[in-house]
């Protein structure tokens, strides 16, 4: 079972990388771009057949290592 973990900086935590990319988009002529936030996507191939159990496992992994809860939030979703 494949679980996708999306890790993003918490709201309110400055994302200088996102800011720089937003600026570059503006320079390239893409108008109407508001705030740009950059995160990380981690796909986990898990030895599980139950989606709920797979997500629970991925949640534990995110809390323990994949995300730093001081600065980041995460979302897990079963994708396959």
């Amino acid at each position: 079972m494949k679980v996708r973990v999306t890790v993003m900086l918490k709201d309110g935590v400055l994302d200088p990388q996102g800011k720089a990319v937003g600026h570059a988009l503006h320079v390239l002529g893409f108008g109407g771009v508001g705030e740009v936030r950059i995160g990380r996507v981690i796909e986990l191939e898990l030895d599980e057949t139950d989606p709920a159990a797979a997500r629970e496992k991925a949640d534990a992994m995110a809390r323990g290592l994949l995300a730093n809860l001081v600065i980041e939030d995460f979302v897990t979703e079963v994708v396959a």
Partner: protein
Amino acid sequence: MKAGIVVFPGTNRERDMAIALRVVTGREPVMIWHAETDLPDLDLVVLPGGFSYGDYLRCGAMAAHAPIMAPIRRFAEAGGHILGVCNGFQILTEAGLLPGALLRNGALRFLSQDCHLRVERSDTPFTRRWNAGDVFRAPLAHGDGNYIADDATIRDLEDSGRIAFRYARPDGRVDEGDRQTNPNGSVKAIAGVLSANLRICGMMPHPEDLVDPLMGGEDGKPLFEGLVEALVR
């Protein structure tokens, strides 16, 4: 003072740290490989700078879960003294041994330059050779040194005197918004913090880089001399 320096794959400042410790103790510190599961008998554990595990995932995130961190946690719980510099500071925050986190520098660039640090209190093993308000020069070299914590944590750190060093002008003035003196954009210009028992200190700049006139100065030496005084046995 018996000191040990922890070496992870990608650590690269352990020899400089060894020089600093040798200068003040007169003896060779022990190098401890990250895969070890026990610590030798030590007064001080140092987590030096570098790029442990290639900064994969987040700076210090992988190292924070290395086998050696279990005995280091026990050492901390037993009241042991720990110094983390640069990547070592990042590892201590990732391990939860110090509060907060280190984000990408505010201006995105990797910074390699001197900075000035104001000593916020002198009654700790790390700062006892200075007076509160003293300013010293220290080199910094990092891409992710932008200290952050939530408002409640920052308030708690300030109220309980757990900020060891702030980035400052040479005259001691602190200006959080000034990139000249607070180059990485750290909240409240925080450069180094302490644990609740004042025995764990993490800082981004490198005091070990200025411990000999041949290095261009001895500005960082008081930190190590103070530790020797505090931990002599």
